[in-house]
Structure formats: structure tokens, C-alpha cells
């Protein structure tokens, strides 16, 4: 084993350990959310995950972007098979250790190359689309700064990785043809054989250097990218799966009935209840209704936030956003992630205890004006390629505003007092309800 192999193993282990640590933190942050039971109906959940995450059924609603996304996704999954070989080669100092697969190996390498080209082309098109075409949903205010940079970085990294992969194969192809020691002939190179002529003027030593450089660049790049995921919207490549698995399977129109409220309503309606009874001293402290901060949301909602890929399909279908209101369902998800990250960092900095920071999701991130613009139309949940539910967060926050702060817009208070007093949202006497029959 040479020094290079040892360096490789150290880098590999460091990358994996760091990644596992950061994923652990995200897991902990997600678990800051309230419990919600999504263990029902497993068969339907598996089906949903296979259809929506694996099959990308909702991506292809927009066909061009959808198909290119599938190229990148397939490329990502399949080319990563190659990483397995690279890891073994790197640790043992072998050259293309799976070459013994013969014709099948040629087929594999050949198809990786073709996919690599498709990924490369798709990434370049996506990059151009983000930067050259003024597509409205990539220019919304919430995309300023880091989110835009993040989107571009991902594409640039993928372009570089694919270029390194193809250059590595091209130099390998030449070295194999020249019969240079260690470079035993293996693999078919339908694409890189075409770019090989660019390098054919190089010496053997130069080619070996190029092959080694691109090899290292490719694998270290992948390991670095792995660790980049945890701070990026690109984390969706992992979370898309649990996110769709645990997504809401009920009719979209159905909102949750708050159990805490049901208990109180039952008590109020119970004719046997003694209204003057002293409160049970053992009763749990009264719950807060609705969501003020991320810890009032449930873990699925927090996982949604970490899964969001900031594509903006939700926002571009949102009637409120389209008509110039402040509300953007994507921003709701980004705010939740930013806030839960902030809470997580706070916990890390204070030895595992959250130290009150005087901030909350409501007001510091999401304003009532945004919340009151929602028509609850479900266009966002329908549009989201991975079944994220911004609407449930909006509703939970409205619940806090109304039930804890009595901070509904004035007209809504009027509507609600009408419902309470007349059984209708308008000021008509309840007794007149059937007057239409004889009018």
C-alpha cells in the first residue's frame, strides 16, 4: 500500500464521518418538531414514494425540465456505481478493479459515459436557464444571495465533476492504448475516445499526471459535494424519499382537526360538566394552540423544509404570489429551514439546551401579511414535485395568530362573530335561514 492509498483512505473516512455528523444534526433538528403519526397505510406510502420520488411523476408536469432532471438524476445514481470502483481502486491501488466483468464492464462504462454527457448538457442548459433567461421564479426576492449562489454552485460542481470524469477516462483510454504499465485495457469509451485526441500530443508521464489529477479531482469532488449537501437545497436528493413516504395521503382539502381543541369543545358541550369545578391540579399545562416557532410545527413539516429544493414551482402556481402579494410558499419553506438551523446552532452553542433568543418563526421570518394572503387553494402542494405541504404551516401559524393572539384581520373577526352568533358568516338571523324556500 502506497502513501497515496493511505491519504485516500484518510480523506474518505474524514468525509464520511463529517457527513454522518452533520446528517445527525439535521436529524436532531427535525426531531425538534412535534410528533405526528404517519405510520398508517404503509403500502400506499411505498407506492407514493416509488411513484413520486423514484419515478419523478410530478417533475414531468413540466416536460422539458422534467426530462432533463431525470437525466441528471439517473446520471447521479448510476455514475455513483462507478464511485464504488473508484473507492476500491483508491484504497488498494488497483486499476479498474471490476474489469474482470468483461463485456458487462464495457457496457457499464460505456453507459456511464453517455449518461455523463446527458448530465453535462442538462446542467449547462439549467445553468443558462437560471442565469440568462429571466425566469420569474428564479428571481423572486427570497432567491437573492445564497439561494441563487447555491443553485448555481450545484450546477457548476456537477459540470466540473462530469468533465473530470470524462477527461479521466480519455487519458486512461490513451494510456491503455499505449500499453503503459498499470493501465490494463478495460472498459469501452464511446464518448471519451472522441475527446482523447485533444490529449494525444501529451507524453506518457503527462497523461499519467492528467489521469491521476482528474481521478483525484473526481473522487475528492464527490466527497466534498457529499458534505456540501447538508448546507444546500441539494439535500433533497436524499430527503425526497422519506419526504414523499411520510407525505399527507388524505384528500388535500382536509385540514387536521386539532385534538387539544376537540377535548376542550367536548368538555364545554358536556351537560354534566361542572363549570365551577376547580381545575385538575394534575392536568398537563394548557397547550399552546397553533405554531409560533419551528418547535411548534411537527417533524414532517420540518423535514419538508430540509427537503425543499427551492425550485419555486409552488410559488409560480400560487394565486397570491402571481397577483403580487407578499406570500410565497417557497419562502415559507426556506424560512422554516433557516429558523430551525438557527435554533439548532443555538442548541449546539449552549451545550444541548436552547437558549431563548427573543426570535421566532412568526414575525422574524414570516409576517402575518404573508399568512393572510393564502387562499388555501392547494396549488402549492399539488405543484411540489416531492409533496411538500406549505399550506399546513400557513394554517398552523394562522391558528396561533387567531387563537393565541386574537390577531385576525378585522373583517375576519366580524365574520367569526357572525358565525358564532348567527350560524352564518354574514349578519343574517339564523331563523331566516329557510326563507329562500318561499321567496
Amino acid at each position, binding site marked *: 500500500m502506497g502513501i497515496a492509498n493511505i491519504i485516500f483512505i484518510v480523506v474518505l473516512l474524514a468525509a464520511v464521518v463529517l457527513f454522518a455528523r452533520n446528517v445527525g444534526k439535521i436529524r436532531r433538528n427535525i426531531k425538534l418538531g412535534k410528533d405526528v403519526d404517519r405510520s398508517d397505510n404503509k403500502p400506499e406510502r411505498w407506492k407514493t414514494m416509488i411513484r413520486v420520488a423514484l419515478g419523478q411523476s410530478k417533475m414531468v408536469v413540466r416536460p422539458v425540465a422534467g426530462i432533463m432532471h431525470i437525466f441528471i438524476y439517473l446520471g447521479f445514481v448510476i455514475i455513483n456505481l462507478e464511485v464504488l470502483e473508484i473507492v476500491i481502486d483508491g484504497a488498494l491501488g488497483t486499476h479498474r478493479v471490476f474489469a474482470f466483468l468483461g463485456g458487462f464492464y464495457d457496457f457499464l462504462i460505456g453507459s456511464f459515459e453517455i449518461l455523463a454527457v446527458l448530465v453535462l448538457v442538462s446542467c449547462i442548459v439549467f445553468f443558462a436557464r437560471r442565469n440568462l433567461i429571466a425566469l420569474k421564479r428564479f428571481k423572486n426576492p427570497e432567491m437573492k444571495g445564497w439561494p441563487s449562489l447555491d443553485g448555481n454552485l450545484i450546477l457548476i460542481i456537477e459540470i466540473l465533476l462530469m468533465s473530470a470524469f470524462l477527461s479521466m477516462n480519455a487519458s486512461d483510454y490513451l494510456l491503455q492504448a499505449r500499453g503503459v504499465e498499470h493501465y490494463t485495457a478495460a472498459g469501452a469509451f464511446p464518448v471519451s475516445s472522441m475527446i482523447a485526441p485533444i490529449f494525444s500530443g501529451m507524453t506518457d508521464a503527462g497523461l499519467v499526471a492528467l489521469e491521476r489529477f482528474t481521478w483525484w479531482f473526481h473522487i475528492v469532488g464527490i466527497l466534498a459535494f457529499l458534505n456540501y449537501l447538508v448546507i444546500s437545497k441539494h439535500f433533497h436528493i436524499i430527503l425526497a424519499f422519506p419526504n414523499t413516504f411520510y407525505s399527507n395521503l388524505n384528500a388535500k382539502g382536509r385540514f387536521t382537526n386539532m385534538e387539544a381543541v376537540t377535548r376542550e369543545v367536548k368538555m364545554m358541550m358536556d351537560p354534566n360538566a361542572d363549570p365551577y369545578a376547580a381545575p385538575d391540579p394534575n392536568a398537563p399545562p394548557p397547550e399552546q394552540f397553533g405554531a409560533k416557532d419551528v418547535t411548534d410545527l411537527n417533524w414532517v413539516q420540518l423535514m419538508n423544509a430540509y427537503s425543499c429544493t427551492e425550485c419555486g414551482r409552488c410559488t409560480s402556481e400560487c394565486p397570491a404570489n402571481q397577483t403580487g402579494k407578499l406570500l410565497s410558499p417557497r419562502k415559507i419553506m426556506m424560512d422554516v429551514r433557516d429558523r430551525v438551523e438557527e435554533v439548532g446552532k443555538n442548541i449546539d452553542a449552549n451545550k444541548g439546551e436552547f437558549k431563548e433568543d427573543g426570535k421566532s418563526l412568526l414575525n422574524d421570518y414570516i409576517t402575518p401579511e404573508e399568512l393572510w394572503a393564502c387562499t388555501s387553494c392547494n396549488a402549492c402542494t399539488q405543484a411540489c414535485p416531492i409533496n411538500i405541504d406549505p399550506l399546513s404551516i400557513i394554517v398552523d401559524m394562522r*391558528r396561533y395568530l387567531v387563537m393565541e393572539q386574537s390577531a385576525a384581520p378585522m373583517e375576519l373577526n366580524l365574520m367569526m362573530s357572525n358565525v358564532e352568533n348567527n350560524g352564518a358568516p354574514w349578519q343574517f338571523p339564523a331563523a331566516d335561514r329557510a326563507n329562500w324556500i318561499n321567496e
Partner: protein
Amino acid sequence: MAEDKIIVPTMAEMTARGEKPDVLFWVGCAGSFDDRAKKITKAFVKLLNKANVSFAVLGAEESCSGDPAKRAGNEFLFQMQAVTNIEVLNAYEVNKIVTACPHCFNTLKNEYPELGGDYDVVHHTQLLQQLLDDGKLTIEGGNFKGKKITFHDPCYLGRGNGVYEAPRELIAKLDAELVEMRRCKTRGLCCGAGGAQMFKEAEKGDKEVNIERTEEALETKPNIIATGCPFCNTMMTDGVKNKEKEGEVTVMDVAELIANAGDL
């Protein structure tokens, strides 16, 4: 039919006679109090009468389903309404409910069961389709023959509950030309009324949602904008007025289309 005496028994009356209807017609607040929506209610009742459907209404015993309170975030008020309504419905041993309001439809169908109110709830377009399929109702006369009709999907009927076809099949039976808007069915654009927006001014923006939607509907150059929700009806009617097109384009509920096809 002669100038139409509609027959609308209430649950209380029927029970007093020792009878039980097959289906309860849940009228809803808009259908009971809003002048425009009352016409939809009556058109639907005419169809029920014509098809000899055994039905009743709750009359003054009905109360708001609680939908606007719930969407506004007032879960307390919603559950108070729900529990009160469920008590009444269960006392009458109601099994099947039809309503012409997608908001009541959604709330009763999806949100009442957990609170003790489990009923078979259908939207009026679904019941009408059933009646036509069973031959209990036939469309006579061709008042809409050759007319261009576009259908606006109410959010709580379409995306909310996956009902896209029933209203369209009814329109198809009119021999009219159904023209779809650019955004329809799963991608249909909201009229702007949902989520309790109906009862408040819109937040600050550069356009009203109903104007955006009306413009899209008008792009199809329709004679009629059809819908299946009293609130969508209001929003689209206001939109058409705003665009000064009320001379050329009318906004109608699917039930009114069916009732008017044969000059009921």
C-alpha cells in the same frame, strides 16, 4: 313546468310524518342567504323535484359548517359548529348528504368524521350526474346547443377532493362546446375566495386574483363561465363586471345549466 312551485320538505316535517328522506340537501350559508346563490339552490331543488328525489333540508336547524372559521385559523369555532351540526344530523340519522357548496362538501366529507359525523357526502354535480346516468333526469331542449362554455374548477372540489369529471360530463350532455382554460383541473387557478379570503379585503398586491382568473376565462371567448361553487360564482361574476363583459358572458352554476337546458 308551470311557474314553478318548488317542494322543499324540512327534516323536522318529514320526521313528524314518520318519513325519512333518501338524502339530506345541505344548503349552506351562501345557498341560504346570498341572493345569487339562492338562485342556484332553487335551480338544484327544481332538478331534485323533477327527478322525484326524496330529500329534505334542515331549514333553520342548519348552521354554518365552520369552513371559513377553520381556514381562518379558528379551530375552536369550527369544532363548535361541527359538533353542533353533527348532533342535529345524527339525531335525524342522516346517511347521505348532497350540497352545492364545495366548502361544505369538503368539510362535511373530510373533517366531520373524526368528530363523530360520518356521512356519505356528495357534491351536487355528482348527484346530478348519477341522476342522468340512471335515467331519472333527462335533458330536454337544447338551449345551450353550440354555446361555448368554460368550466372553472373550484379548489375544494378539484384539487381538494379530486372531482374534475362530474361537472364536465354534465356540461358535455348539453351539446355545448366545452372549452378549457389554460390552467384547468389539477392546475386550475383559484378564484381568490378560499381560505376565508371571501370575507376580507385582499392583502396588498398588484392585482385581484378574481380578475386574473376572469381574464383567463375570457381568453377562451366563452358565452358562459360555468362553475360549481357559490363563492367562485360571486368572484367570477364580479370579474366579468369589472371587465365590462356582462352583456356577452354569463356566469352560471352547472345546476342552473342543467335546469335551464329544458326551460325548467
